[in-house]
């Protein structure tokens, strides 16, 4: 019986998840049920045909997964527009069907798919990359952040040797467009029509309940990038034109936002 039930389930999922028109989908998968037609497998009700009834599940499958992508990528949805986003979401669902018990990570490949559509330009995939980093920050471990006072315990002469371990939620993202400015305007209910070109860097992290997006200047991005790749403080600041007071301000801000988890003292 398990085999029979298994074939029936394979067939039902195949028909429900097939994006082609129902007639084509049913024909394409009828071999799974010995060439039987839909009517012989599903009962009609007093009000609905077997086709109408299975169509409810077909619609629900697409709608549920598209909704998940809409939730994760609201700004990207706005940038692309409803029709284009729906079309790409349909392609996404076919390319990356869910195999997981939950949908937390379902949308993670959307930036990749958008990159493959070169005609869209780079902005949509960059914006999606930023939005996915926000999702990842929400789900990243809630671990301790560096207490800024810890720095005071390091002898000044050895400060240059100290490293800073990034917090698990923290990401440094570099773009060729001003995606954070676009996202900021979108989330403040004054959305823009286009993402302006121009190099930018954004840091994303979560401190407790709050997820942060911080624009980073080129110098800040250089320092953070070096620190997070394991460089000690002195090497991270090498060739970076910034005074000690300004550098301290950066560290205070970064620490307050929870970008570091610990000092690495050699």
């Amino acid at each position, binding site marked *: 019986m398990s085999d029979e039930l298994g074939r029936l389930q394979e067939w039902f999922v195949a028909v429900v998840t097939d994006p082609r028109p129902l007639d084509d989908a049913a024909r394409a998968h009828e071999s799974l049920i010995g060439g039987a037609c839909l009517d012989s497998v599903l009962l009609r009700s007093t009000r*609905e045909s077997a086709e109408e009834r299975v169509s409810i599940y077909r619609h629900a499958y697409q709608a549920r997964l598209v909704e998940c992508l809409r939730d994760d990528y609201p700004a990207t949805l706005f940038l692309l527009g409803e029709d284009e986003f729906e079309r790409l979401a349909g392609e996404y669902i076919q390319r990356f069907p869910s195999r997981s018990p939950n949908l937390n990570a379902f949308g993670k490949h959307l930036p990749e798919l958008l990159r493959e559509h070169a005609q869209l330009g780079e902005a949509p995939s960059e914006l999606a990359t930023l939005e996915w980093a926000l999702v990842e920050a929400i789900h990243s471990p809630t671990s301790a952040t560096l207490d800024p006072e810890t720095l005071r315990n390091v002898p000044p002469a050895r400060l240059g040797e100290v490293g800073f371990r990034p917090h698990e939620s923290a990401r440094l993202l570099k773009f060729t467009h001003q995606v954070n400015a676009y996202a900021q305007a979108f989330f403040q209910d004054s959305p823009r029509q286009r993402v302006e070109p121009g190099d930018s860097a954004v840091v994303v992290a979560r401190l407790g309940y709050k997820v942060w997006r911080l624009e980073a200047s080129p110098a800040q991005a250089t320092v953070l990038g070096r620190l997070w790749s394991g460089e000690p403080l002195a090497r991270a600041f090498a060739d970076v034109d910034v005074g000690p007071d300004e550098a301290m301000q950066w560290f205070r801000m970064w620490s307050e936002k929870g970008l570091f988890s610990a000092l690495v003292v050699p």
Partner: protein
Amino acid sequence: MNRFGIPSLGIGVGLRTAHYAHILEQRPELGFFEILSENYLETAGRPLLFLDRIAELYPVVMHGVSLSIGSTAPLDFEYLRQLKALRKRTGARWISDHLCWTGTAHKNTHDLLPLPYTEGALAHTIERVRVVQDFLEAPLALENPSSYAEFTASTLSEAEFLARLSEQADCALLLDVNNVYVSAHNHGFDAKQYIHSLPADRVVQFHVAGHTHAGKHIVDTHIGPVVEPVWELLRVAAAHTGCGSALLEWDAEIPEFDVVLREARLAEPLLGPRVAA
């Protein structure tokens, strides 16, 4: 009283992210929260931060949508391990999921798909419920699903299937009276007869919810207030079972928490006497 000695928790509400802050600030009086288990799996972050605080304040029960108990795909023991750990973390009184399947080994539809109600499917599902209960070491309650299609192969009614499954696998039941209403409309069976067909002492929790008429069928959308015929089914179900735990699900166009709570409390006079937890 149910046969499992599971206490009645009174009135509960489905925990939704939109209400986290309000709940933690206002600490409304409430019997219990039901969490959607999958929202707290494969995350180590913010959802668990909120859940830990809420579980300190309220009794919690776990409700899942991915057990896929009727599937022929192998049981997902990694998922079960996570469920078990989540129960330990929250102290959930019981774990529930649906009499359904959600996909194959290669594709999860994230939908509650209908089973053919046959002797073979029954035997298959009984065996899986036993394995799951042994693994979870926790009371497992299965919920009657809302459905929109039936298989010609079915030889049993859904109520008969569910009754025999619960008896032979020795599991509990979560009776969703809105689902009974929705499926009775969609398939043309008698809702009250369905309720009376279930073993009364296995029902440990009720669900009520709103739904949407979509022309020829009704969809279980969990939207809006509960309609009077569904309250009437709760009245019938409470009288039949004596169960004292009822939960309102409101998942679409979610209003402020106080509106949800006010609606949920309409169930209170319909329930049997509460048993202290």
